[in-house]
């Protein structure tokens, strides 16, 4: 059974006739064409699918689209565009903080939520905030450096 659902994403309002049980991740990717958030596990164990919902970084793989309500969703595409990247995105490129890049979107979203809450995180703060995230390529240290670099840039 489908249902008309209103969704606020990256500042725009969308009305979608969809299965209310469909995972938010699939709606973002397949209906709205926002491919940044990735499917990793569907079990909220890896962080690849994180988006901001009212500023909180949450996994979108197991969140039914109908559960979002009026909340404001921000995906990586909403943080910056290729022509106008967010400081976190610039820092990830400056530190070459990726190998395959499959975990990057979820990590940048989690880092955004962290910096909004704690503008000057220590290595320990960052590791704690990202601990649910998996990077299989082993670029963790570069990611930590990128977040610290972005924090400095944002503070200036």
């Amino acid at each position: 059974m489908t249902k008309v659902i209103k969704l606020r994403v990256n500042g725009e309002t969308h009305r979608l006739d969809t299965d209310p049980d469909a995972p938010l991740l699939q709606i973002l990717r397949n209906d709205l064409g926002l491919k940044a958030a990735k499917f990793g596990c569907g079990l909220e164990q890896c962080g690849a699918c994180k988006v901001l919902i009212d500023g909180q970084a949450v996994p979108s793989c197991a969140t039914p689209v109908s559960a979002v309500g009026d909340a404001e969703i921000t995906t990586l595409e909403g943080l910056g565009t290729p022509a106008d990247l967010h400081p976190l995105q610039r820092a990830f490129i400056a530190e070459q903080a990726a190998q395959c890049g499959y975990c990057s979107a979820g990590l940048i979203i989690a880092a955004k939520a962290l910096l909004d809450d704690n503008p000057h995180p220590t290595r320990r703060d960052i590791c704690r905030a990202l601990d649910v995230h998996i990077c299989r390529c082993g670029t963790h240290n570069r990611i930590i450096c990128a977040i610290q670099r972005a924090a400095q840039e944002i503070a200036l």
Partner: protein
Amino acid sequence: MSIDSLIRFDTDGQVILKVAHVEIGQGILTAIAQIAAEELDVDFARIRVERADTERTPIASTTGSNSIQTAGSAFRQAAADARHLLLAKAAAALEVPVENLAITDGTISDGNNHTTYWALQGGQLFGETEPNIGQPKSPTDYTLVGQSLPRLDLPAKIAGTPSFVHDLELPDMVHGRVIRPPTYAATLATFDEGPAADLPGVLAIICDGSFIGVLAEREEQAEKAAAALRQSARWHPAPLPSSDTLYTDLLAKPSQDFLVVDGVPQDGPVPPIKAPPSAVQTLDATYYRPYHMHAALGPAAAAALWQDDHLKVWSHTQGAYPLRGSLASALGLADEQVRVLHCEGPGCYGHNGADDVALDAALLAHALPGRPVLLKWSRADEHAWEAYGSAMVVKTQASLDVVGQICDWNHDVWSYTHSGRPRPIDGASNLLAARYLADPLPPPTPSPGKGSHGGIHRNADPLYAFARRRVVKHFVPNSPLRTSALRGLGAFANVFAIESFMDELAYAAAADPVEFRLRHLEDPRARAVIEAAATEANWRSGVRGNGRGRGQGLGFAQYKNAKCYVAVVFTVAVDTASGQIHLENAAIAGDAGQIVNPDGLANQLEGGVLQAASWTLKEQVQYGPDGITSRDWETYSVLHFAEIPPVLVKLLDQPGSPSLGSGEAAQGPTPAAIANAVFDAAGVRLRQMPFTPERVGAALREL
């Protein structure tokens, strides 16, 4: 290779490289672009890379840390040839001698008149040219090679623009899912299409033997239908053995045994172990690694489209051509009827499910010709059905003479195959779904590789100068689990054993482990990386094993005794109450010959060390009668951010010497460095991975 097969000049100032080697997060496209731009004297920004496509790019596979050597050399020569020919063309066009011409960013000038590569060659083929007509630059003239240029592919990925096969949007695309049996050999007894067929959006249910799949208009519809089908399917069970007995099972099975000489397995009898008369002290030890997963962060995916008996596949395979041949062979097609286009995927670290999912997608898409099918595996599919890195057992025995020199060395390694990559085979297939069809193609019977530093015996032959050595490969054909190439292959366990045992021998000889290694090592580059890693780590010299809870350990190897040299020093703290190992920091030294991109090389080495640390401390594929029980990130746990040590990388550049592949070079030294550091910290010797707190605790209680 011909220039045309690799390089093309378009008409608007770009150079197009046709790269058949694939980007898997290792930065190969950027490195090749640097090499080509260097030889051509064009700005790096003019390079555009065309991805592997069996209709457009040459035959190649991305395996064995070979790309920088094979593709790098091919592009270097082709670019030098192109530059030479274009200079000659320019000389003719401008009516001046070649010696008077200089090239700046593709513009060729004698100071007065000028032309460009694109004016001379834009849109045209070179045709047949004299091989090696161009002389590649001297490394002393390099301006781009050797620079840490940023990766070409990262901006798109960091901006979140579609970059992966999972992100494909093709016109009229539908979504597929597959349903697998509970265990490898289980067969379908009954299943009921009914409940799934009635669900909204379902377009086709495919059941061929024990292969089941479903197609739906939308992804969530395909998932719901797959769940219903999974529930209705009943299987004839075929229990697996238990992972509790994996090593006794491995050692109890009949094996084919080969003496390995200079890294190459020999036919003929294997000599027995016999300590020489000069031996005053003889030690032996046995080391174990379990099955490990590639465990890519994104489950495998592929798209497939059938049109007029032709199949088009979008895949994150490491080898577009071998996949094309395997698909053609499994589907009864000619190679020409199949086109494979490479599309990036999550880091794979070897042969994972990327190829298998392509056959799945092709089988489903056949039910709906003209409509492309995007098929994604689930997390459980990925964990349970990929081909794992094989479990291995290594038994070592060595003797010290009166001056503390190793006078005899024995290394016996038991393993299942590490070679299960797809290739066209008559009557068999390495692609997973083929074995479940009503007209099945079983997996081929594995056979022992005889090549230099092949899978099981990769790095089994130590680089050290020993008076005598006996290295034996025991190939065991029948693995209970599906196995294939995982980053480093056999080198992971072989180097773990060699480098742990070197530490055990150093302790027996009352020697500093670094000094002990150096006294057995003649290769100056090997010595240099060990010394560099020790320096970076502030190595505390002396006999090890008395670190009082905190310790340092070193591991070293030259990958395949022919590629990148790596030494790693780990500093760890061992919590004797909990048995927990804390990785405090790691220092890596690497020598990969002439460095193309220092930051890219550092990224490979530090990533390799951290991934191998995760294998070492945490990872093991668990299984039992009901099948694989490691089916998610909780039942197959990996290293998380809070457990990651800072890593320092020291690169030893060798300008003018060949570039050496580095992607797998850090895997082997890592577990040994950690085990040796734990011995230094706590006086316990860990010989079985993973080094869980329970295992460390048990070893501490035995002290």
